[in-house]
């Protein structure tokens, strides 16, 4: 159930949403398309689903050419950011839709719908209408609906984007567990790097209609190939011409080799971890992550002039 995207391009009028994009997704994996809005990630997902037609390039699902297939023939499950619940149907009928369309026997439909409602913890809500559910419940219903016809591929377009932070974290957790259970090849779109890092086992970082880098979350964080990936996946500081993660910076009261002079603007204690925000002499703002012990040891205070030294830094060839 692998997915392959080959040299896909797509423009909307004069705007190039996708520019010669290729991507391979292994069967059974959980992949995130991560990027800022307008980077083309949703367009790519919709092209895989058949909801958009590429101007050039091909989509292969399980090794078979699917570019010309209409969405209803692709056997993909799609989950929309705003749920796309069928408002005039009960939760049960929503979930059953894909099976009813396929004219499966009634008993089989009833049994499978009940099982899915259990899986998404909505067994008590089968008779309700979508309007009577909370956002999180609606999205779980949409997931059950997408899973009902046993799709080869599950595609989620910013599935948690419209939900509040707590429900978001809950559903994120739940999606990961679901994937372990069902093992359907899954691609989800998000602009939230934390969400991508937390859930996916492979991330494709997108920017301006192109894929910048594909890799495991730690790989993207530790070995970013481009400045964009460095900045978008995790936090990064610009010091002279290179980039440094906040925890790869040392603060000292004395100047050292390659150190930069900076003034402490703000200190925020987030439990054990402390974030120190500084402004460098050249005006660039710098965030340093230190432990509480180190903070006390150095007796750091707002307004102090200190020296910041990068322990591990990266420079990128200018790409834009």
């Amino acid at each position, binding site marked *: 159930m692998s997915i392959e995207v080959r040299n896909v391009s797509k423009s909307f009028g004069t705007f190039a949403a996708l520019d010669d994009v290729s991507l391979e997704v292994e069967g059974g994996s959980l992949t995130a398309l991560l990027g800022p809005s307008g980077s083309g990630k949703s367009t790519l997902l919709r092209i895989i*689903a*058949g*909801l958009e037609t590429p101007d050039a390039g091909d989509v292969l699902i399980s090794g078979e050419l699917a570019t010309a297939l*209409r*969405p*209803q023939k*692709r*056997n*993909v*499950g*799609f989950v*929309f950011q*705003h749920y*796309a*619940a*069928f*408002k*005039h149907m009960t939760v049960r009928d929503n979930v059953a*839709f*894909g099976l009813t*369309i*396929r004219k499966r026997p009634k008993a089989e439909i009833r049994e499978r719908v009940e099982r899915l409602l259990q899986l998404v913890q909505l067994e008590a809500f089968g008779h309700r209408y979508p309007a009577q559910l909370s956002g999180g419940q609606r999205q779980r219903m*949409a997931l059950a*609906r*997408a899973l*009902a*016809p046993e799709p080869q591929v599950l595609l989620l377009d910013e599935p948690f984007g419209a939900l509040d932070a707590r429900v978001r974290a809950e559903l994120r957790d739940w999606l990961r567990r679901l994937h372990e259970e069902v093992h359907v090849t899954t691609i989800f779109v998000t602009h939230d790097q934390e969400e991508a890092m937390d859930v996916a086992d492979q991330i494709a970082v997108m920017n301006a209609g192109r894929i910048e880098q594909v890799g495991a979350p730690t790989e993207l964080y530790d070995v970013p190939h481009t400045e964009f990936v460095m900045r978008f996946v995790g936090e990064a500081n610009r010091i002279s011409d290179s980039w440094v993660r906040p925890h790869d910076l040392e603060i000292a009261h004395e100047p050292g080799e390659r150190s930069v002079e900076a003034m402490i603007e703000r200190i925020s204690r987030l439990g054990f971890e402390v974030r120190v925000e500084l402004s460098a002499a050249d005006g660039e703002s710098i965030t340093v992550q230190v432990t509480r012990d180190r903070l006390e040891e150095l007796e750091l205070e707002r307004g102090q002039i200190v020296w910041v030294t990068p322990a591990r830094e990266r420079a990128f060839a200018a790409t834009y």
Partner: protein
Amino acid sequence: MRRYSLRTVALAYLAAILVGPLAIVFWRTFQHGFAPAWDALSAPDTIHAFKLTLIITAIAVPINTVFGIVCALAIVRRSFPGKGVLNAFIDLPLALSPVVVGLALFLLYGRQGWFGPWFTEHGIRVLFALPSMVIATIFVSLPFVAREVVPTLREIGDEQEQAARTLGAGGWQTFWRITLPSIRWAVVYGVILTTARSLGEYGAVAVVSGRIQGVTETATLRVQQRYESFDLAGAYAISIVLALVAVVVLLTMTLFRPREETA
């Protein structure tokens, strides 16, 4: 206080413009008891006129319903050259006087018209017969379904339809199972308005029908004919029936409305 005075003005205006005339029609009809009214209503020509009105409505409403839904779908869901023109032209019957519509049909289907000679050759009577009256009615009641459905379609968006596609539904299945149920109340309103307009049509039909008593005379034409023949009781009686139908239509709409708001 200001709220009450506003209310009084609104109600007084309604009473003067709408309720007053209706009440007078009621009073005039039954001024001399039920017998004259009943006689007028049971005259064969009157019964024929009502039948004809119903037949025309029964043809025009389904055609306009299908056309209206198709048009609304085209306007909201598709982009094609000439879409703006279509959108503007749908409203034309609202702006155009029905008499002008009748005259236009005369020019098209008359003896010297574009299509007239062809129909005459094939022995089909269009003018002064049912076909032209149906066409005229379809024309004047054309916009209502489309105008009701377009905003609803815009509001519901196309995500539900896309979801249905990814779940395996084809175009027709998506329409019947998702789109139509979502717009059903808009369609119902549109149909009610179209029906009301078709039942009440006068101007265009007056021009093309030739007003032949017992042949091409509809209920509204019959009212005018009775009035001109100084049979006021008859004219009022037929008017009452038409007015009652209008009231029933209004009530149906009010009954439907709250159901849509909770849906």
